[in-house]
């Protein structure tokens, strides 16, 4: 599903954030991406979503080499991926419903479908009763759930999360990770970057660890 083949990323500053990284994530697998702060976890996820381009090597998503995707085709590549961010990136000028509806509007779903799918996604994260609320009025854990609902509302085949539990306490973190596992159970390939490798959930899955931009083998 996702394959890195000797991938390196050098930023414009000359800093080498990833060095010769090779790994594979199978379809419908759930893996964790761990490593110290600055290890290159976010960089790796940015390469998969084509927010950044690798400087060497090749990345395959669904067997498609990313270097062959032209800039104007990037939006269509991103539509098969759902992304959850640490600071959730919710928009506070609109309701929870409209936040979750955004990916569907972007893709051009019919209005009726949008309502149905948004409610289904909110139901899955347990926030159906909050659809009309402004996300600013929600707790951190609830906001993160809205972010997850937005990431899965268009049923992507891949779900990426960058520190989805970064600001949350352990109990809530466990709930959030459990939620990811549920999506994984219905066939979504899940990749979660976190520095918190002591989380029980993390230990249940395969772990890809980075250290100063290089993979740690053990």
């Amino acid at each position: 599903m996702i394959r890195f083949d000797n991938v390196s990323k050098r930023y414009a500053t000359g800093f080498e954030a990833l060095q010769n990284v090779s790994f594979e994530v199978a379809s419908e697998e759930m893996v964790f991406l761990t490593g110290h702060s600055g290890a290159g976890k976010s960089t790796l996820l940015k390469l998969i979503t084509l927010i950044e381009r690798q400087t060497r090597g090749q990345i395959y998503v669904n067997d498609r080499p990313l270097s062959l995707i032209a800039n104007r085709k990037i939006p269509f590549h991103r539509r098969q991926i759902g992304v959850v961010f640490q600071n959730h990136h919710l928009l506070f000028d609109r309701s929870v419903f409209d936040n979750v509806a955004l990916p569907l509007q972007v893709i051009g779903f019919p209005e009726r479908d949008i309502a149905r799918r948004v409610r289904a996604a909110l139901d899955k994260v347990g926030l159906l009763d909050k659809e009309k609320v402004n996300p600013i009025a929600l707790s951190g854990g609830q906001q993160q759930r809205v972010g997850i609902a937005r990431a899965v509302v268009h049923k992507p085949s891949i779900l990426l999360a960058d520190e989805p539990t970064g600001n949350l306490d352990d109990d809530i973190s466990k709930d959030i990770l459990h939620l990811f596992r549920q999506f994984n159970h219905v066939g979504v390939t899940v990749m979660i970057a976190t520095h918190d490798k002591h989380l029980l959930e993390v230990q249940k899955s395969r772990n890809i660890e980075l250290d100063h931009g290089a993979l740690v083998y053990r």
Partner: protein
Amino acid sequence: MKKLFHKAPPKREEKGVKKHQFTPDEQVKSYFKAHWRVLKQTAGKFLKAPLDTLMTCSAIAIALALPVGFYLCLNNIQAFGPQWEGHTQISLFLNKRIEEARLGRLLESLEYWPEIAKVSMVDKTQALKEFQEVTGLSDVLSALDDNPLPQVIEVMPSQTNREPASAEALLKRLEKLPEVDIAQLDLAWVQRLSIIIEIGHRIAFGMMLFLAAGVLLVIGNTIRLEIESRRAEIEVAQLVGATKAFVRRPFLYTGALYGFIGGVIAMVILSVALYYLSEPIAELSGLYQQQKRLLTLSFSDVASLLFMAVLLGWVGSWLSVNRHLERLTPN
């Protein structure tokens, strides 16, 4: 190294992920619905900050109204043109040795020229008398036994031959007639007027270019602020797969709507100004024996003004959005 390529668990049979397929009909419908939604959102935003909207639109309106108003005035002055062109007249000073019969034949043949509307003979004796009165040379002149004035025929070109160019061509042909010594075209007025109008048109055109650039700048700057304030939304939209067209759309509608409202305000300004001007202009018309004519905006004036306004708004925001979105997309 090998260890890293962990064997993935076997694929499950049931697939939770299904590709959503749209029928072409659905696609077209949702495309128009998406546009309609953006238009509604844009209009709603305008209504939320009516004063800001009004200020931007007024700046655009003034920039539009100035050159258009100037242009309308010019067209109106030009409308007096035919009246003045009625004074276009060619005087033929005939050869003195020409006899009466030939004169008659000449008059008759000129009547048949399609370029000529009217031919009239100036009475020689009458002309001499007027000349004597004006100059006070009656004694000297009456001492002559023969009338010294040449026979003069006045030719009025037909309606289609009164503009300077064709009147000049007619003059050339008349000059070549053997009976004619000198042919003189009384054109000064018409020529001067058409030159003035030509200069006016050029000024109006230059003004239009300058002010159109002004409109583009005003809209471009407004859109830039708008992009700045919606940066978070743009970033999220792009991360979930928004195309450039999708991101651009609300801004293009915003620009077009600014242009449209600006155009409507410009029309109100023009209507008020034209109403204010209508009285002195009616007087001026009366002076030139023309039936009362008021300056008004015709349907095509209105349509082209609005079209230009919307187009400027659209182009202005297009330029601005493209310039600023470049910075938001990955390299």
